[in-house]
């Protein structure tokens, strides 16, 4: 075969990119484990095995090289992100269902890595969320509030049988010491607001201490820390998380200024729910994000604005997944209309031809 120039090559690879994302998610993962138990690790394991197996089967059916493709790490990364996003005690088969759906219908159906329009991890998340809304919002309270931490045996038992080893169902451990079922801070705010409470009244709850509630602020800080590593390693395009955070900031600031009693502060939004993981680890998936510099800003801003709008006015407590999928749809258009100005040209293309 005649090889064309260049004959020099920078030593970097797709696999390294994928692995860096996994490594950078470790601080966030550590925080999740610390506050919500070992369940997230079990989720990641189930998702990883499912993703690799599904990808292998589909590649076999599509007559594509199996091992050469699996080592690109993309299936593993999708599984990893799904595992991080799911509630820690989700029944095992839901994780399998979501992950395999993501690999088959959100990735391989489009032609595999690089060809999919939608973020596979978020497709899995949304599929599960709208199919099993109860299980998917059944986050357990942070260990500090629950009073005791869940044993490894109980964690396994909940995930694989639905009850603890003593036969209690999941709502048992979701109850705080006062007997009320605990939700996530975002969930709590939504419920209380609908009952006519003001933000200031809602925030006195013991769960709501700190920036954005016990546990959650640390999870977000963990992902922020890892995310900054990604930016420094130039693994992720910095414009996207900057856009997401700016979009959240501006939208929530407008609402908060209009009516601080009814709308959460920007700081709360930044460190609540899946914000930081979404901004740095989900939205930055290069395949499904805009690929131009301006496009990345717009893509990020859109996610930020939509997230705040759904969190505030929509039916779901968190919205990163929906926001990402909605913005995924706009990517081809963003890419076309945000072309940079080429050397020697006066106008940017896409808007006008020469």
């Amino acid at each position, binding site marked *: *075969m*005649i*090889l*064309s*120039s*260049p*004959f*020099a*090559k*920078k030593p*970097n*690879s*797709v696999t*390294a*990119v994928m692995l860096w994302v996994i490594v950078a998610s470790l601080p966030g993962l550590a925080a999740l484990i610390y506050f919500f138990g070992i369940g997230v690790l079990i989720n990641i394991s189930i998702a990883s095995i499912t993703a690799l197996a599904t990808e292998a089967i589909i590649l076999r059916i599509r007559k594509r090289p199996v091992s*050469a493709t699996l080592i*690109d790490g*993309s299936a593993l990364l999708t599984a990893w992100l799904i595992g991080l996003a799911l509630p820690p005690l989700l029944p095992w088969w839901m994780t399998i269902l979501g992950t395999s759906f993501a690999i088959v219908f959100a990735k391989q159906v489009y032609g*595999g*890595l*690089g*060809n999919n329009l939608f973020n596979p991890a978020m497709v899995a998340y949304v599929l599960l969320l709208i199919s099993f809304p109860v299980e998917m919002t059944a986050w357990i309270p942070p260990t500090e509030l629950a009073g005791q931490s869940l044993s490894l045996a109980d964690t396994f038992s909940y995930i694989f049988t639905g009850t603890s080893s003593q036969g209690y169902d999941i709502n048992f451990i979701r109850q705080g010491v006062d007997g009320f079922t605990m939700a996530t801070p975002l969930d709590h705010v939504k419920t209380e607001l609908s009952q006519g409470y003001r933000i200031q009244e809602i925030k006195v709850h013991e769960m709501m201490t700190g920036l954005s509630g016990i546990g959650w602020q640390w999870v977000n800080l963990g992902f922020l820390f890892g995310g900054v590593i990604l930016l420094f390693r130039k693994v992720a*395009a910095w414009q996207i998380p900057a856009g997401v955070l700016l979009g959240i900031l501006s939208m929530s600031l407008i609402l908060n200024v209009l009516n601080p009693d009814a709308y959460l502060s920007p700081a709360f939004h930044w460190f609540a729910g899946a914000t930081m993981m979404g901004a740095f680890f989900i939205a930055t998936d*290069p*395949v499904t*994000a805009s*690929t*131009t*510099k301006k496009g990345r800003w717009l893509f990020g801003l859109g996610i930020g604005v939509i997230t705040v709008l759904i969190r505030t006015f929509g039916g779901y407590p968190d919205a990163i997944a929906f926001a990402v999928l909605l913005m995924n749809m706009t990517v081809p258009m963003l*890419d076309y209309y945000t*072309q*940079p*100005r*080429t*050397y*020697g*040209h*006066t106008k940017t*293309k*896409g808007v006008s*031809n*020469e």
Partner: protein
Amino acid sequence: MERSSYPSEIPIFEFPGGIHPQENKQLSNRSPIAKLPLAKELVINLKGQAGNRSIPCVAVGEQVLKGQLIAKSDGIFSSYQHAPTSGKIIAIEKRPIAHTSGLEDLCIVLSADGDERWVELSPAEDFTALCRKQILARIFESGIVGLGGASFPSHIKLQREDGIDTLIINAAECEPYISCDDRLLQDNTDEVLKGAQIISHLYKDLNIIVGIEDNKPSAIEALKAARTKLRMTFDIAVVPTKYPSGGEKQLIQLIAGKEVTHGKLPADLGLVMHNVATCFAIYEAIIQDKPITDRVVTLTGKACGKPGNYRIPIGTPIKHLLESTQTLKSQKLIMGGPMMGFEIQSINAGIVKATNCIIMADSNELKPEQTSLPCIRCGECMNACPASLLPQQLYWHAKADEFDKTEEYNLFDCIECGACAYVCPSDIPLVQFYRYAKSNIRNNRVEKIKADNARERHEARLDRIERVKLEKAEKHRKAAEARRKAAEASGQADAKKAAVAAALARVQAKKEANHEASNSHQADKTKEPKA
């Protein structure tokens, strides 16, 4: 690598993108320019320059002297070629040429007699006595082409006179491995600068700027020393080492802070740019009356037995270079640099005027052949592109044969520098896709012109047939009219006469119609294209 601490004498601007590949220049830039033993047989490629093939003007069996004209320009866009040494023309035939395709092309084969006898030369120490026309003619007749790699005939580049105020000497030499310009600037500083003076003289007086990367401290020192010695004035623009700073458009952006507008030339900015080796060749042509018979080539690579820079006669076969540098185990041969060069397919091919470097690589030196992974749109290529293109989008559309889309994304502004492919984490041979799309678009353009011509001819033919038909109908109508009139004139009484008259009129009309038809038929024939 060592960096020059000498500050740039004029402000330096920036160009977007660019990369920092391993320079590997110290392999070859440590020793002065040397010579190798003469090859027994030289293979001079008649298409060794940009443009058209030169036309041989010697016969097989003829004895030639070094520097004797052996092939002429085609008169439009080509260049002269001269005997690189004295000897006998033993063949004018198709031989493998140094080209990425590995194809054969017409070459003059010269058997060297080893005497190196020159044709009679008439040196002209004082070039200022020569007028512009004389100098240009001599540059043309000396077969000078751009020796930086593009080998564009220099006399064409120097033709435009008005509006030019600045000469930029391109000494950036940004490709890894290559050090021939670096060495030429150290070993023949005066000659290079005098060459620049000659170009300046061509335009009365130009502002001269030498653009050089900061990884050539010795060359910068040599330039400074020679400037004092020759009492010349020029600015040394020291640009940071970043590939592809030596690209014409990029060096202009670095030095002038301006872009060459799409579809325009550097001359439209008042600039003309020539490479170091071209200046040297112009010096030799004007002052010493020597046409291009050899050039400085960097022979390098980890497999090269005696890496360095050598003055090598044009047409010297690669095989001879491998043997005389004791290079035995080279895995891969690259002509040019690793970023824009090409793999040599036949070691029997001779070097051409554009050959600035031959990399004799060992097995783990250059990129191994790799299967590429899918594009993940990471945008590394976009960040590396010096032309601010979107290589990822160009790739996407080129791969899908959506050539109109690649043009919308300004495919033709791609300079094929290879920075995108260098950084691609998926190891996609991006430049190959762009070349593929470009050649398809060019072919389509030619096809479209052909198809348009054919359609026009077809429409003209249909028009003609229609016209002839109408003319015939008109004739018949006229004949009928004549008959009717004849009948009326003779009256009903003489029906017999009328019948005769009508018959006559019919015959007449038929004759006329026939005549007309054969005329137009003939016209058809002459108009019918030969294609």
